[in-house]
C-alpha cells in the first residue's frame, strides 16, 4: 500500500489502481465519465481533474483516472483550482449536450446531470445552435443510441472490447461530428448488450425495452439475485407502483459478477408476469379445478401422500435452501427421497458469466441431499408411482405440460407452482410465490450464497411454500403419532 495525502489527510492507496480509485474510496466526490472501475482508463473526458503536488515540484492539475499513486503524493481534490478546471471541462461537455432531461430516460441517475446540478452554472454562454445529430439510432434489438446526448467518453467502446471481448463499437467521424457507431452499421450482437446502457454515464445508450417505461426516481430498488442461470448474478430489481417489475440491473459483486450481467437475466422480467397466476389451493373434482380452503386441501394432500406412498417428490431448481431443507424433512417423514429436476443445458453458456445451466440453486440443493433427476427418468418413475408431489416455480414448464397430461389418471399428483395445468392425474394444486416475491438463499455454481428478496408483494391469495411444506410434514406425521 502506498501512503498519499488527500486534502491533507494521510490515507493508504492501492498502488495498482489509479488515483481516482483512492479518491472514491475516501469518499471524495470526484466526478468520472470515461473512467469505470471495470474498464481500462483512458482519460478522455478530463472531468476527474485534481491538483497534485509531489515533492518540491509546484502543484499541477492532472486527470485522476490516468495518474498512478506514488509515495507521499499530495492530492487536492477540492482546491479552488481543481473545482475551476472541472467546471470549465463541464462547460465544454455541456456545450453540445441537448437540454433533453425532461425526456431523457437517464434523468435522475445521470452522472452529467448530477455534476452539473452540483457544480455547473444554470445558464449557457453560447448562443450558437447545438449540433444536430440522429436522436433515434438503433443499434440492434436491445440498444438505442441518441447521438446528440453522447459525450464520447468511449466507455461503451471499451466495454465491448474488454468485457465480452467482441469489439463492435467505435467512435467514427471527426471532432464535433464524432459519433458512436457499429462497424458497417451492423446491429450489435451478443448476450451482454444490456450493460452498455448501464456503463453509459449519460442517456445516449438506452435500453429499448425500458424506453419511456418509468422515471427512475419512481422505481423502488431491491437487491436480489438473478435466477436465470446457476451463476446467480447479484442484481437490483426495480419496481414501479409497488408491483410492476420494470427493470433488472446488475449490482456490483466482485465474487460473482463484477459489474455486469447477461441479457438473458436482464430481460427475464417478462417471466415474472402477474397475469394467469394461480392463487390459493385448488382440488380437482368432477368439474375440473375447484378453489378450496387451504387447510382442507393440505389435509387431503398429506393424506394422499401418506397413504399412497412412497410418493415421488420432485422440486424445481428454483427452490431456496430454506425450502429445500423443509422438503428434505417432508421426504424423510414419508420415507422417500427428495429429488430436484435437473434441466438440460440451454446452450447459452459463455466464458464470461452465463453458465448455460438454467438451474439457479443446483449446487445448494445438491448440498442439501436432493438428488438431480432428468426428464426421462422422472417421467418413468411418475408412470410407476402412486402419488407424486411436484414443488416449486416453473416445475410445470420444466417437465412440460404435454408430458404431465400423459400421466395415468391413477397417479395422485399434487403440484405447487405459479400456474396450474389440466392433467387427468392432477389432484390438488397450490399457487405459490415466485422468486421475486419471497426471501431465501441460493448457492451458485461456485458456492457463493446469493440472497433473493421480496421485490414486490405477492398476488393476493398466493401461499408461502415454506408454510405449505411445514403443514404437509406435520399432516403426514399426524397419523403416525396418533
Amino acid at each position, binding site marked *: 500500500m502506498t501512503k498519499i495525502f488527500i486534502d491533507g489527510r494521510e490515507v493508504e492507496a492501492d498502488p495498482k489502481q489509479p488515483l481516482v480509485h483512492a479518491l472514491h474510496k475516501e469518499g471524495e466526490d470526484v466526478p468520472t465519465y470515461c473512467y469505470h472501475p471495470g474498464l481500462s482508463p483512458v482519460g478522455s473526458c478530463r472531468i476527474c481533474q485534481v491538483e497534485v503536488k509531489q515533492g518540491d515540484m509546484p502543484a499541477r492539475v492532472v486527470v485522476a483516472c490516468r495518474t498512478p499513486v506514488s509515495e507521499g503524493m499530495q492530492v487536492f481534490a477540492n482546491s479552488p483550482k481543481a473545482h475551476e478546471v472541472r467546471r470549465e471541462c463541464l462547460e465544454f461537455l455541456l456545450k453540445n449536450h441537448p437540454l433533453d432531461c*425532461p*425526456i431523457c430516460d437517464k434523468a435522475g441517475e445521470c452522472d452529467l446531470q448530477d455534476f452539473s446540478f452540483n457544480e455547473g452554472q444554470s445558464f449557457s454562454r453560447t448562443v450558437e445552435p447545438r449540433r444536430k445529430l440522429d436522436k*433515434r439510432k438503433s443499434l440492434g434489438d436491445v440498444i438505442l443510441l441518441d447521438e446528440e446526448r453522447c459525450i464520447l467518453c468511449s466507455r461503451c467502446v471499451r466495454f465491448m472490447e474488454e468485457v465480452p471481448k467482441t469489439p463492435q463499437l467505435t467512435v467514427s467521424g471527426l471532432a464535433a461530428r464524432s459519433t458512436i457507431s457499429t462497424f458497417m452499421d451492423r446491429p450489435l450482437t451478443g448476450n451482454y448488450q444490456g450493460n452498455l446502457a448501464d456503463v453509459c454515464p449519460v442517456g445516449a445508450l438506452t435500453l429499448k425495452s425500458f*424506453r*419511456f417505461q418509468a*422515471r427512475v*426516481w*419512481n422505481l423502488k430498488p431491491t437487491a436480489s439475485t438473478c435466477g436465470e442461470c446457476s451463476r446467480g448474478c447479484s442484481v437490483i430489481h426495480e419496481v414501479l407502483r409497488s408491483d410492476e417489475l420494470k427493470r433488472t440491473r446488475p449490482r456490483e459483486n466482485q465474487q460473482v459478477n463484477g459489474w455486469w450481467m447477461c441479457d438473458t437475466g436482464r430481460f427475464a422480467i417478462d417471466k415474472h408476469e402477474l397475469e394467469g397466476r394461480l392463487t390459493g389451493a385448488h382440488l380437482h373434482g368432477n368439474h375440473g379445478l375447484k378453489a378450496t380452503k387451504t387447510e382442507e386441501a393440505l389435509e387431503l394432500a398429506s393424506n394422499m401422500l401418506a397413504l399412497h406412498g412412497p410418493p415421488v417428490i420432485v422440486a424445481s431448481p428454483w427452490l431456496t435452501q430454506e425450502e429445500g431443507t423443509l422438503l428434505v424433512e417432508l421426504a424423510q417423514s414419508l420415507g422417500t427421497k427428495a429429488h430436484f429436476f435437473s434441466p438440460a443445458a440451454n446452450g447459452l453458456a459463455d466464458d464470461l458469466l452465463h453458465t448455460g445451466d438454467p438451474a439457479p440453486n443446483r449446487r445448494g440443493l445438491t448440498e442439501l441431499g436432493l438428488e438431480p433427476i432428468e426428464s426421462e427418468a422422472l417421467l418413468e418413475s411418475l408412470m410407476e408411482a402412486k402419488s407424486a408431489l411436484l414443488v416449486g416455480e416453473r416445475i410445470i414448464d420444466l417437465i412440460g405440460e404435454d408430458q404431465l397430461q400423459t400421466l395415468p389418471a391413477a397417479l395422485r399428483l399434487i403440484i405447487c407452482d405459479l400456474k396450474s395445468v389440466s392433467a387427468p392425474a392432477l389432484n390438488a394444486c397450490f399457487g405459490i410465490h415466485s422468486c421475486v416475491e419471497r426471501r431465501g438463499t441460493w448457492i451458485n455454481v461456485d458456492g457463493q450464497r446469493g440472497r433473493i428478496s421480496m421485490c414486490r408483494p405477492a398476488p393476493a391469495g398466493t401461499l408461502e411454500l415454506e408454510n405449505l411444506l411445514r403443514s404437509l410434514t406435520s399432516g403426514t406425521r399426524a397419523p403416525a403419532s396418533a
Partner: protein
Amino acid sequence: MVIVKRKQLSLFERLYLPEIFRGLGVTMRAIFRRKITRQYPEEPLVTNAVTRGQPRLVVNEDDTIRCVSCGLCEIACPAYAITIDGQETERFIEREPERFDIDMLRCILCGFCEEACPKDAILMSNELELADTSRQALIYDIEKLKRPVSSLQDRLDYVYKLNNRWQNSSSTS
C-alpha cells in the same frame, strides 16, 4: 362546571322596545350601504391570471399536447394526485403522456405542478368549480384536462412574469 352569571339588565334595556328600534336602525343603515355579498351560482366568480384554480394541460395550436411526461409534477405533487405513464411519439419531443390522471379530490390546488413543469405544459387554470356524483368521475383523465393554449394565455404570461422576476433577482444576488 361553569356558573354563568346573567347580566343584570338596566331599566332602559328592560323596556325592550328601544333596543328593538336600535337594532332595526342597524339594518336600515346597512340597506343603503354598498352590497358586498355575491349571488354565487347565478353570478360567476371573478377570476384573473393570479387565480390558482384546477390544474389543466396545455394543448398547442397544432393540437399536440405540450406535456412530455417527464414526471416532475408527479414527484412535486404533495398530495400524490398525479399519475403519469409515458409513451413514444413520432414528434420531435419523442415522448408524450399515454395516461395523465389527476385525482381532483386529492388535488389541493397548491400549484407545485405548474412550478415544477419545465415545458409550461401544466397550468393552474381559472376553473374553480368541482362537483360530481361519484369519486371515479373526479379522477380527471388526459381528455378532461386538455385545454387550448389560447384559454390559458393569461396565466402563461403571468407565470413567465413570475419566472423572470425570480431569474433577475437571483442573478443580481
